[in-house]
């Protein structure tokens, strides 16, 4: 029995080692974890619905072309989450300049995005990873207010 166990353990070890060496498993990109094209599209849609219902910030979007914004946001999120896109819109500083944004409005926006992802049951790791990539953009967004 003992010998059997030993052989079994060795066999498992060899199996797992060769498994690691033989086929490197590519971990999915953040874009894939967010649900790919459909996932990002849904995140942006839900996010904009949340924003439209959010009296704290809806005013900022009064003169915004929402379809253009949605497309632009999808491309942006796709780009920063290592998806197959290149964001071609204006820089974050330029896109937000002179909007009169406050920290409160920035926080409200993050809150709405977070809720959109939670509505879709995006897993917590992917949610936090996306927020982590967006958080440093604060400096650019708030540069010319």
């Amino acid at each position: 029995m003992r010998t059997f166990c030993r052989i079994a353990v060795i066999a498992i070890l060899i199996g797992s080692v060769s498994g690691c060496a033989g086929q490197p498993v590519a971990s999915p990109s953040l874009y894939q974890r967010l649900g790919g094209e459909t996932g990002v599209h849904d995140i942006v849609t839900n996010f904009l619905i949340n924003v439209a219902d959010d009296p704290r910030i809806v005013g900022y979007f009064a003169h915004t072309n929402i379809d253009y914004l949605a497309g632009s946001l999808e491309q942006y999120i796709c780009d920063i989450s290592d998806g197959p896109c290149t964001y071609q819109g204006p820089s974050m500083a330029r896109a937000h300049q002179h909007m009169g944004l406050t920290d409160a409005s920035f926080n409200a926006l993050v809150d709405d995005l977070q809720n959109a992802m939670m509505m879709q049951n995006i897993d917590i790791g992917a949610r936090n990873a996306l927020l982590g990539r967006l958080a440093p953009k604060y400096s650019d967004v708030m540069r010319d207010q």
Partner: protein
Amino acid sequence: MRAKPSLMLLIGICGLLMGNPVLAGSRLLGTGGVMQIEGASGGGLSPWGVLAGTASDNEVGVTLGATRADVDDYHLVVSGVAANLYDRVELSYAHQRLALDTLGGHQAQDIYGAKLRLFGDVLYRPWGVWSLGIQHKQQVEGQALARVVGARDTQGNDIYLAGSKLFFDALAGRNLLVNTTLRSTRANQGGLLGFGGDEGDHRELMIETSVGLFLNSDWVVGVEYRQKPDNLGFAGEDDWRDLYVAWLINRHVSLTGALLDLGSIAGLEQQRGGYLSLQLSL
């Protein structure tokens, strides 16, 4: 003043749990920490770089807290109130009353605090948020005992610099909050045994640090450590540490529990026990 915050807390919590619409700050859940035992926003033991509640740059907020800590030979009751003005200044008041269950008697102090956010943001800035704070502590009960055991003064000022930073997706996809505080102090057992002593009467720089892992957006677990001076010859003073879990029920109500290890206090060794703190933010 002592009973008032507790009563307001109860009334407020009943209202908030029923879902009455009350204005909340816009900062995200958890970014104000909880009320630490000296009334400032932080963990349980240490002030953090963040300011109380969720008020942002054009908002104000008020936070009330009630805390009880029970260790082998003592228990501490704290009630406090803190105001956050535009996420720039925090003003706080706390009343601490320590019951000497084994030795008999009480030690109590009032703590008036102010914290100024110097720069940064806990979520969005690479260096996090940094604040400078002061806590003016005045013993209101047990001054005689403090004198007897060798304390030089029954009031004192702690000055601290605190920084907090949240790292997204840091551990198993979870966000990790890291805090460091440098405190200049002469306080014995936080001030409850007076300030300065026969074995040291100068300010010393103490380090306090904590980490907290957000299991999800409303549960945080972590550990804290607070270094302390050792000024009194009659008994050694140890550093404090704890293991905590905070439940951020919503933007208005949070509940924090902790396992405490406060070391030796006034000659009684190995003071361990539990900590429970209820907080209400408006």
